[in-house]
C-alpha cells in the first residue's frame, strides 16, 4: 500500500539533510510504529508524505497504491486516501468544526468523482461517530479546535479520520499532551478503524501508546534513517533500555 524507497529530504531554506534514505513498506491491515529520539526525522517523514511546504525531496520515491505521492498537491494526496493526524492540530477561528468536516468530506468525494453527502446524511453519520469519541454537540459547533483541550484536539483528529475513511493513516505523536484516559479514548478510536484495507503508521516517542494501539511492526529511526526494524518487542526494548543501546548496536 504505502511504499517508501530511499527517500531523501532536505530543508528548502537551508542546506540541511533531514531524511537520508528511508525505506518502508506498509501493507493494508498492518500497523507500523516508528520510534526514535528527537530530531531523528520522524515528523519530517509525516510532513513530506502529506505535502507540507518547506521541504525538498532530493531522492527516492513514495507511492500509495502505486500512485506517486510526491508529485501531488496535499489535497490530492488526501483524496487519494492519505491522512495525517497532526501533532499540533491547527486552530481556525471563524470556521465551524461541522462546516470544516463537511467541506472536507465532500471535497474528497468530489475529487474522486463520487456523489456529495447530503446535509442530513452527513449530520447523521457525524453525530454517531462523534458520540463514540465522546465529542459533544458543542465541540462540533465551535470553530475548528478553538478552545479545545489537548485531548479534545486529538479526538477531533480521530473524528476527521473516521469521517474521511482514508486508506493510509499517519499519526504524528498523537499521544503527546494526553493523559492516560484521553490516550485510551484516542486509541479506541484508532482501533475501531483498523481494517484489512487500511494501513497505519504510528509515530511516537514512547512505548505507552503502543500498549493501546498494538503494532505489527516497530521501526527505530535515527539520524534520518530507519536503523532497526522488528516486532512489538522492539518497543519494549526501547522502553526498558532507551535508544542508546540500539543506536550503539547498529553504529
Amino acid at each position: 500500500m504505502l511504499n517508501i524507497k530511499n527517500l531523501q529530504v532536505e530543508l528548502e531554506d537551508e542546506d540541511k539533510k533531514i531524511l537520508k534514505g528511508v525505506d518502508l513498506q506498509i501493507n493494508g491491515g498492518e500497523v507500523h510504529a516508528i520510534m526514535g529520539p528527537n530530531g531523528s526525522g520522524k515528523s519530517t517523514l509525516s510532513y513530506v508524505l502529506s505535502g507540507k511546504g518547506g521541504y525538498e525531496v532530493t531522492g527516492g520515491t513514495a507511492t500509495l497504491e502505486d500512485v506517486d505521492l510526491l508529485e501531488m498537491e496535499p489535497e490530492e494526496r488526501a483524496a487519494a486516501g492519505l491522512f495525517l493526524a497532526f501533532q499540533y492540530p491547527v486552530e481556525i477561528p471563524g470556521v465551524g468544526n461541522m462546516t470544516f468536516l463537511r467541506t472536507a468530506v465532500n471535497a474528497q468525494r468530489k475529487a474522486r468523482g463520487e456523489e456529495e453527502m447530503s446535509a442530513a446524511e452527513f449530520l447523521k453519520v457525524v453525530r454517531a461517530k462523534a458520540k463514540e469519541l465522546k465529542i459533544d454537540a458543542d465541540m462540533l459547533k465551535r470553530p475548528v479546535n478553538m478552545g479545545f483541550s489537548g485531548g479534545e484536539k486529538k479526538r477531533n483528529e480521530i473524528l476527521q479520520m473516521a469521517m474521511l475513511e482514508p486508506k493510509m493513516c499517519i499519526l504524528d505523536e498523537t499521544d503527546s499532551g494526553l493523559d492516560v484516559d484521553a490516550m485510551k479514548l484516542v486509541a479506541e478510536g484508532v482501533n475501531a478503524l483498523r481494517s484489512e484495507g487500511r494501513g497505519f503508521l504510528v509515530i511516537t516517542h514512547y512505548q505507552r501508546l503502543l500498549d493501546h494501539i498494538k503494532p505489527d511492526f516497530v521501526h527505530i529511526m535515527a539520524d534520518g534513517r530507519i536503523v532497526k526494524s522488528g516486532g512489538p518487542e522492539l518497543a519494549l526494548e526501547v522502553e526498558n533500555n532507551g535508544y542508546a543501546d540500539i543506536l550503539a548496536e547498529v553504529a
Partner: protein
Amino acid sequence: MSEVAMKEDPTEAMIASLSMPDSTWGAAAREDALARLRTIGLPQRRDEYWKYTRPDTLTQVDAPKAAVLQSDEEAMFEEVDRLRIVFVDGVFDADASDDLSLEGVTIERLAAADSDLHWAKNLYGVLEARGQSPVQRPLAALNTAFATDGVLIHVTGKPSKPISLIYNHKSDTSDAILHHCIKLDAGAEMTLLENGPAAARFNKVMEVEIADNASFHHVRAQGRDHERRTATHIFARLGTESAFHSFTMTMNGVLTRNDCVIELTGDDAIANVAGACVGDGDFHHDDTVFITHDAVNCNSRQVFKKVLRNGAVGVFQGKILVKAGAQKTDGYQISQALMLDDDSQFLAKPELEIYADDVACSHGSTSGAIDEDALFYLRSRGVPTDEATNLLTLAFLAEAVEEIEDESLREGMTARLGAWLERRSG
C-alpha cells in the same frame, strides 16, 4: 469674483454646475449648507481626512463614466419581506416602488414634502451641520444644499417589516445626490435596508435622530458595478438607552468613501458600526468613523474587515472621542485587512481622544496574509487551495458580519460574500 477665477476654484465651479431645488421648509437649511460649503470648500488632497483617499473624482464637475454591469445575480434582500422604495440613478421610480404606507411609520419623499411645518425641518441639515466639527465634511454640506430627492421617515412605532431603499443604476453618466432624514420617536424601532450601485457617482447623506429607548438597525450592501464612485455620510444622534446598529458590505466600486458620524447624547446608549468589504484590482474603499461619547455608560463598537487583492486599497480612519463627564464609556474599535497578495494596501488611522477618567477604550488594527498553517491543515483534509482560501477569507470577515443581529440577513450577507469570492478564485 471674476469669470476666470471662478473656473479655477473647484468649489465654485461645482456650485455653478448645480441648481438648488425649490423647497419650502428646507430652503433655509439648504442656503445655510451652501454657505458652509463655501466657507470650508470641497475636499482637497492636503486635507487631513483626505490624505489616503483622492477626492478629485468626487469633486470634479462631471461624474466620471461608470459602465452599468450586466449581471445575472439576483439583487440583495430579494427574499426579504420589506417595503420597497426604488430610485433609478437617483430618480424616484414610483412604478417599481411599493405604496409608501406602513403602520407605525410615515414615509414621504423629500421632493414631495412641501408643507411648511414639516417635522423634518428640525432634522434636515441639522445633524450634518453638527457633524462639521471638529472634522469638516464638505461633501455632506454639498449634499444638503443640492439634494434632489430622498426619503423622510418618521417612525412612531414598530413597523412590521424593514424599509428597503433600492438604488438602481442604468445610466453610465448619472450623478445622483440623495438626502434621507429618519426620526425615531421614543421606544420606536425600525430596520432600514439599502442596496444597489445607485449611479455613476452617488453622494448620499442620511441623518438619523434616535429618541430615548428607540432602536435603529441599518444593513447596507454596496455592490455590483465596478466603476461606480460613492461618497456617503451617516449622521446619527442617540438618546438615552437607545441603540444604533449599522452594517455595510461593499463589493466592487473604484471609489467608496463611507463616513459615519455618531453622537451619543443620552446615557446607556449603544452604537455599533461594522463593515466588511472585498476588493479586487481597481478598488478603493475608505471607512471614516467618528463616534462622540457625550453621556454616561454608553457603549460603542467599530468592527471593520477588508479583504484586498490585486492592488486593491483599503482605508480606515476611526475615532472615538470621549468628552469630559462621559464616564463608564466602553469604546471598542478594530480594523483588520486580509491581503491576498503583495500588491494590495491597507492604510489605517485609529484615534482615541479621551477627556473622562473612568472609561474603557480599546483599539486595534492589523493587516496580514492568509494563515499558512490553517491553509495546509485544510488542504491536508482534501480541501482544494481555492476553496480553503475562500473558507478562511469568509472566516476572517465573519467577525464583522456577526454584528448584524438578524440571523437571516446575516446568512444572506455571508452567502453573497462567499459567492463573490468563489467567482474570483482560480
